[in-house]
């Protein structure tokens, strides 16, 4: 990691330690507060990767991923918020020439939700549907009949908390549409999703690190049968293996480039995040099962994000095709 990147990592970490660490539980319970969205904007997280013509900071891919990685370590919801604005919503608005609205989003005066169930596999034509509902939000992006639509209207928030990304009010929300505008074809959205494998990997790896760090700390102090957990070989070896895998993948994240490699990392990191967070929870014993200890959220989020961002069929097929150089893995 070069010096500049390291500095970026350190700065974001400092922000997270000061502004997120002690509040992460509240984010999960009550949603990310308004003031935090402002803070993301003030920190330059929103628009970090976008061109200066859009008011962005033009950070390179690694710099942007460093932000996502660090945020996910503390709050995967916060990381996803930054990702969905920078990598999905703002490019869609800009592509449709809606620069004024994009500007409002950058300033934090307008927030837009994503109707997730209709975005990806196209399987969830539910009403109410699973969506992010960043409060207070009057806009939502959804896919209908092959088109990406920006809908204006009113959210009715679900009282049921979803599996993951609770900080963003993800749930079976309803939306009463008042007007809608087309932002493009469904393919443009798919391209953005496919094109952001690196960013998605950064979130998977960041949240894995958040969970594993907690497990390492906990197993140093928790004793059973008169020994700290770290002294038991299955605990120490498993956590060390997971930390090693994390290190390899993090190195890959910050040193490699290209679409194929991005897909490779996304496939590995989404699998890995489920495994790492599950072990981290397990080594906390009963405490891991309780929200207060802040480790179960990583387990929930890893699975929810895998469902949201990783299309097991689509992404694996794309990877197979890039490796074979021809149509493959379709039967």
């Amino acid at each position: 990691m070069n010096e500049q990147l390291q500095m970026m990592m350190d700065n974001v970490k400092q922000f997270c330690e000061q502004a997120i660490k002690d509040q992460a539980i509240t984010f999960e319970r009550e949603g990310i507060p308004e003031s935090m969205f402002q803070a993301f904007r003030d920190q330059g997280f929103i628009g970090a990767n976008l061109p200066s013509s859009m008011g962005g900071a033009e950070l390179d891919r690694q710099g942007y991923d460093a932000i996502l990685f660090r945020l996910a370590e503390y709050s995967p919801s916060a990381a996803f918020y930054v990702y969905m604005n920078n990598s999905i919503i703002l490019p869609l608005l800009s592509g449709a020439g809606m620069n004024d609205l994009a500007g409002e989003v950058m300033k934090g005066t307008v927030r837009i939700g994503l109707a997730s169930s209709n975005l990806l596999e196209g399987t969830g034509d539910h009403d109410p549907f699973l969506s992010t509902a960043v409060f207070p939000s009057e806009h939502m992006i959804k896919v209908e009949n092959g088109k990406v639509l920006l809908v204006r209207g009113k959210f009715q928030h679900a009282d049921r908390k979803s599996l993951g990304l609770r900080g963003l009010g993800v749930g079976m929300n309803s939306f009463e549409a008042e007007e809608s505008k087309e932002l493009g074809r469904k393919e443009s959205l798919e391209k953005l999703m496919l094109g952001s494998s690196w960013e998605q990997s950064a979130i998977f790896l960041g949240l894995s690190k958040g969970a594993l760090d907690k497990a390492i700390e906990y197993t140093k102090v928790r004793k059973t049968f008169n020994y700290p957990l770290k002294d038991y070989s299955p605990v120490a070896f498993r956590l060390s293996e997971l930390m090693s895998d994390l290190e390899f993948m993090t190195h890959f994240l910050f040193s490699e480039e290209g679409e194929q490699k991005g897909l490779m990392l996304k496939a590995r990191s989404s699998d890995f995040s489920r495994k790492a967070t599950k072990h981290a929870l397990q080594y906390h014993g009963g405490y891991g099962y309780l929200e207060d200890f802040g480790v179960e959220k990583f387990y929930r989020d890893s699975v929810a994000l895998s469902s949201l961002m990783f299309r097991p069929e689509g992404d694996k097929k794309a990877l197979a095709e890039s490796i074979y150089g021809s149509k493959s893995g379709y039967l």
Partner: protein
Amino acid sequence: MDFDLPADLEEYRKQVREFSLREFTEETAMMHDIKEKYPDELRKKALESGIIDFSNPWKTMLGIEEMCRVDPGLGISATVPYFGAEILMLHGSDYLREKYLSKVATGKMMMGLGVTEPGGGSDVAGLKTSAKKSGNHYILNGSKMFITNGGIADFFVTLVRTAEPDVPSKRHRGLSVLVVERNFKGFSSNKLTGKLGVRATNTAELIFDNVEIPQENLVGEEGKGFYYVMEFFNISRVFVAAQSVGIAQGALDMVTEYLSSQEKKGVPVSEELKFKLSEMATRTEASRLLMYKAASYLFNYKPNPTITSMAKGYASETAAFCAETAMEVTGMTGLSTKLERFFRDSKIMEIWEGTSEVEKIVISRMMMRGDSSE
């Protein structure tokens, strides 16, 4: 070797399934999950309908499996008011059985089991709660953590230290089981909220502040508590295997239905996804067979701790595996349906009543001692 269950058990299984499908509606399950509320009305209905039947342990096991297959949180809640009853059944005096157990069996009382403490659950012998003899009472001080039914049960079968071990390295000596009533002076409980899953069940911390326990509330003999609890775990782990098999089967049901309906809609289902279904089905069946084997030993009065730990350990990992695989296969659909609740519920299987690691410790210890699985 006959792998078919007798007709009366098959019939019973069918009845429980019908009951669960009728009573454990999605609305009910979701409400209790969201509100973290114990479904007392379902406990009563299950008892009144006769599907909670202690006369035959096979029925208990199959009933748990079928209920958890429909909804783990509600299924466990309906079957857990009797948690710990076997300790009283096997070792309680006539007085204790009459005063407490008979009322639990008729639904007039609920009970819980207090073993785990804030300082540890796996290391049972390391517990700190102490009961000092004073005249014809014990004076109880300490606390218990993560106790199911902790906020609602009328009494708790509680493992405590009544004497220091005669040999310091034999910490399991000097432990005893006492029945502690909720309304004894000095008893209090704090409900634990924000659980990942099984949120319909009630979980609490119990605090004992100079609680006076009458001597007649000692279960069995003083100093034998550790053995009673370990014996109990050999029974209850078969029932946790049943919870796990139920969860795995429920997840499998949903994935089978999902993939079949995709195919019917003309959406191609890849071999990759079909192989995942095959693996889920195979692991679920293997878990069920291990559970039957453990149950067969146990219910014929020749418990086999090795097989029991294998059944509990493997079935619980299978439950978590199947729920997670189901989430992966169904993607957004899983995320927005009851499958996500199954996923959250499944993880506890690998933690309570002996974590996966503890089961492995038991299995390897028994194998190396020459107590093989046969």
